């Protein structure tokens, strides 16, 4: 249609016909659908309402004394942040989050890489079991987080119902306070988190391994590199882009962990497993201090973005993007 029009434009008759055809429904549709805004509008609206505006709002609320209990709010500017950094609770929350996240990232990356290597090796060698292993590990990952928390709560019960303590008891050992001892509770949460999260890094690393060209391995072999040297000098460098993406995503997930911990320990005993997201939620919805909770959310966001920025420098991905 569009080409026709330009050809006809040269004559007077064509110009008249153009004004007529422009008013037809088909032409109007044609004009509307050739604008990107038509296609983008719904997505842009949804993002504006449910992501962009709330993002501004959380910054703004963090500067106010907003509360669910009272109407209205006034600006207290940085008072919430001052209160936050002076509170014992927040400092403990920060250190719990740091310990939980660091351990989770290391554990999940290491386990994920190990499993991916084992699965890739099995596929290349034609062994039995890679597919079953992959499906089993991934199944753990798609179970709703809240149910994973419950499943591990049941596993770790400190009576005979808890299978781990039951087993230890039959070996003649004492009950281990998996959830009631502050240090053990942190370890329990980390292990349950790894049970859930390892699948993600496994599947990403596996995808990365599959992309390493066979020629590289053969060339390294010709050069006399053994399996370990090949892993170190061929596989790992080739995995760098994947490693970058996985590290960022696992870090974001770990720092923002909520549902699994909510169900497994609810931040307890005391505040031993209270990560930032949990503290934020409770400050907001249990204590109704929306201003303070928003400040907590902003700190969480800033921490996440800062660490992401650090990864960009550490991995030196500038030449790959």
């Amino acid at each position, binding site marked *: 249609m569009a080409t026709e029009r330009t050809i006809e434009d040269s004559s007077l008759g064509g110009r008249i016909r153009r004004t007529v055809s422009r008013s037809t429904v088909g032409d109007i549709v044609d004009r509307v659908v050739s604008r990107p805004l038509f*296609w983008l509008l719904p997505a842009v609206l*949804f993002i504006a309402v449910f992501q962009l505006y709330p*993002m501004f709002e959380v910054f703004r*609320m963090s500067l106010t004394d907003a509360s669910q209990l009272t109407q209205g709010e006034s600006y207290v500017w940085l008072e919430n942040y001052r209160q936050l950094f002076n509170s014992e609770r927040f400092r403990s929350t920060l250190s719990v989050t740091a310990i939980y996240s660091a351990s989770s990232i290391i554990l999940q990356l290491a386990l994920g890489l190990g499993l991916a290597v084992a699965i890739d090796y099995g596929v290349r060698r034609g062994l039995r079991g890679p597919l079953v292993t992959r499906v089993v590990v991934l199944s753990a990952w798609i179970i709703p987080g809240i149910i994973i928390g419950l499943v591990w709560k049941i596993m770790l019960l400190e009576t005979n119902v808890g299978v781990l303590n039951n087993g230890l008891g039959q070996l003649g050992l004492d009950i281990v306070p998996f959830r009631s001892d502050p240090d053990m509770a942190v370890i329990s949460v980390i292990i349950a988190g790894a049970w859930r999260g390892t699948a993600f890094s496994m599947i*990403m690393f596996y995808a990365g391994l599959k992309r390493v060209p066979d020629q590289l391995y053969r060339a390294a072999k010709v050069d006399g590199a053994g399996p370990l040297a090949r892993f170190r000098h061929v596989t790992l460098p080739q995995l760098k882009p*994947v490693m970058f993406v996985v590290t960022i995503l696992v870090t974001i997930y770990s720092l923002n962990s909520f549902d699994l911990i909510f169900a497994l320990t609810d931040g307890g005993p005391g505040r031993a497993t209270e990560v930032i997201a949990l503290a934020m939620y409770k400050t*907001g919805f249990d204590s109704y201090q929306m201003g303070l909770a928003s400040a907590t959310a902003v700190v969480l*966001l800033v921490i996440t973005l800062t660490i992401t920025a650090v990864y960009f420098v550490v991995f030196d991905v500038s030449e790959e993007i």
Partner: protein
Amino acid sequence: MAGSTDTDTTPDSTRSRLSGSQIRLYFYDAATYLVYALAAAFFMFPVLWVISLSLRTEGAVYSALNLIPSDPTLDAYRTVIDSGILGWMRNTLVVTVVSVLGIILVTTPAAYAFSRFRFRGRRTLLLAVLGFQMISPIVIVLPLYDIMRTLGLTESHAGLALLYIGLQIPFSLWLLKGYFDTIPTALDKAARIDGCNRLQTLRYVLLRPVMPGIAVVAIFNFVLTWSEFVMAYTMLGPAGQDEYTLSMGIYLFDTQLATQWTNIAAAAVIGVVPIILFFVALQRYFVRGLTDGAVKG
């Protein structure tokens, strides 16, 4: 070990004297099987144990370590079903299906536009979308609650579905845009010459080749939405128990309703089984989508 594959040596070699590299190969094979076995045990045991617990009589939970209960019973399932878990499952299914359809309807045109149009601000907009993907929804849950309340969308399944659509757009958009990018623009040009406008081009020419991508987006969002807890708990929390989603209901079971571990276990099993079956049936597409979409090395 990746890359230690020696294609020239076969494991079923019957030569009496094994070469050094073959012995090493057998060693790696054995180690790999060990890894498989350990992984299967670690990742499967908790689920098997909870299933086992759910089938026991209340007296049998303290006793034996054996996985298969000596005197299995469905009592726990009866209790859980009487508490309304099937209603929660229906709510979850409705919210999930509506969300997934909405996500596809909104992101397909947008992904098409990002792939096929060249307009001012395109790159900036794309990067902004990617940025939102990096931000966890939990960070904005407080203002979201206010927005949803202002819009009258709390305590409503439709409202929750709208929220899920809003939250899932960035990820789905990126994944689908990647799929559109793999389709040659020659198809668009051919359709254009045949007199198709852009809407017709998408509908009659591009929709078919992009279908695998849409399927991956659908599967992925189905699993995410089905499992989601925080938003559902926050937005539907004030509503009556009948309105709950599965995750919420099961959490409620643990904190308020149940006194017996067998019942909690049965609720967990009912929550897990449908999504695992769904996943095992479709995991091939799921894995493909995840690996295609997220890693653009």
